[in-house]
């Protein structure tokens, strides 16, 4: 379980979990769950396009992920004051990218197995050469979030105060979406578009439901993401069932545990008061 190629799997999955835990925490905090779903899925379409053109899949992933992030950020927050417009733009952007993906896949006929791998991941059998770029990108994303930690927190929690202090919510939105796009463009070929989404939302939502303190919640989110990935790899290795199944179910289970813990905590404080 811990030899050869499996070692690469453990290392990569650990890096991915740290990125997903951090980025996902802000995605949940900023209410950008839908974008967290749309960007990895759009990136998947880019990969299909790149393989059709015969260029490196990473280029397609990066172009579609970052293009999608910029489009959603620019068109979406323009009318942020108005209810629900953000959602509409995200939905339409996602649908456009997936529509293109459908076209690319249908035109290149030999893509069916790779479709499954890109959607649901191919985490077993990662070569040494694939680990390094993911590690580099992981460091870049973590640094990018670390540098902008305060403005990101401020615009998430108190947008009005942020505006008053001269921090543009819109620019913070764009910045964050591009970081998310960078993170997903590297991780999608390894863990799959759908898995990346589950890994970003489940742990972060669980952490948020337990504690309201941002630093603790962020650390907890990363810890839960790590636990989710490690448990899932072990189970997937044993049962041979797809990793995505365990990650999705474990994420939801942690969230339910978090909700349960919170309602217990609430009743306890009520009793004490």
């Amino acid at each position, binding site marked *: 379980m811990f030899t050869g190629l499996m070692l690469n799997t453990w290392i990569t999955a650990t890096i991915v979990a740290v990125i997903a835990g951090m980025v996902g925490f802000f995605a949940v905090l900023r209410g950008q*769950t839908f974008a967290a*779903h749309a960007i990895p899925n759009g990136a998947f379409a880019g990969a299909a396009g790149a393989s059709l053109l015969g260029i490196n899949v990473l280029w397609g992933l990066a172009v579609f992920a970052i293009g999608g992030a910029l489009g959603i950020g620019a068109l979406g927050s323009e009318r942020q004051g108005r209810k629900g417009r953000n959602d509409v733009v995200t939905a339409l952007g996602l*649908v456009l990218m997936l529509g293109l993906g459908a076209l690319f896949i249908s035109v290149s006929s030999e893509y069916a197995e790779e*479709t499954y791998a890109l959607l649901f991941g191919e985490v077993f059998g990662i070569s040494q050469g694939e680990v390094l770029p993911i590690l580099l990108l992981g460091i870049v994303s973590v640094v990018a979030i670390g540098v902008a930690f305060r403005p990101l927190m401020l615009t998430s929690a108190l947008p009005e105060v942020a505006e008053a202090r001269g921090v543009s919510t819109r620019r913070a939105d764009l910045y964050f979406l591009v970081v998310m796009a960078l993170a997903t463009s590297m991780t999608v070929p390894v863990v799959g578009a759908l898995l990346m989404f589950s890994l970003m939302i489940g742990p972060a*939502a669980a952490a948020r439901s337990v504690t309201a303190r941002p630093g603790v919640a962020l650390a907890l989110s990363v810890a839960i993401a790590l636990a989710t990935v490690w448990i899932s790899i072990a189970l997937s290795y044993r049962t041979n*069932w797809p990793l995505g199944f365990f990650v999705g179910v474990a*994420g939801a289970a942690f969230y339910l545990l978090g909700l349960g813990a919170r309602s217990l905590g609430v009743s306890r404080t009520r009793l004490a008061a």
Partner: protein
Amino acid sequence: MHYLFEPGLFASGPVRTALLVGAIVAVTSGVIGVFTVIRGQSFAGHALADVATTGGSGAFLVGLNQFWGFLAAGIAAAALMEGIGVQRRRGRDVATGVVLGAALGAAALFLYLGTLQTSTTGASFTVLFGSIFVISPDTVPALIASGVIALVVVALLTRVLLLSSLSSDLARAKGVPVRIVGMVYLAALAVSVSLAAVAIGAVLSTALLIGPSATALRVTKSPGWAMAASALTGVAATWIGIVLAYDSFYWPPHGHGWPVSFFVVTLVLIGYLLTYVKRPRRLAPRSPHEGAECSPA
């Protein structure tokens, strides 16, 4: 005319079925989509489609008709989302995301087990992107019936839904059971979305749900007109998309039709973007009250 409509287009059975099913789906999605956009539940609409594909792949595995799998999973997910769902938009999105994440995991498992059985990977493509030309005529009555049921439910609830969408506090004060209305509406949305997902794929169902209604709501503010315009736009986009997809068989690369979903998505988006072109005319204040609002107090 001859170049637009290939000879034999309307004589072909699958095409006629496709046009019929496409129209049903577009009308149902168009009408229900107006509420989805007003209520800001685009994510829920898309998530329900994705969750429905989980049911679809499960049904594929068991050997049932996919439509029943789509329907069961969609309605179960709607109940779950509204069950966990917090009233605030942000909390609701997170609940939607968690349900979606778990469902996608299950879809991965079902598709994996499916490939073990049949050793084909085509299932994931069909489930996600749909294939309107291979709908069997047997399922058409079931599709029509569920579309009509969803439309009737929404029609009965129209007034209550509009009120609770625009101001849930006001609705509650008037004695409207907001939670139950929300749940019934989500169930209708699930029916409509699974109808669309089985006919045209999960991707396209979101396009038809959100695109035409967002376009219509940018053009008119009246919900009634918006529903009519949205249904019409949806039907037009679907029909033109089907005709183009049929024609595209003769486009490069030869002997390989382009997917219907691509054409419909593109048409829907063009429609939405066209409403932006008209926008500058509306920059002038429409009434003295609106102008007064903009001036500094």
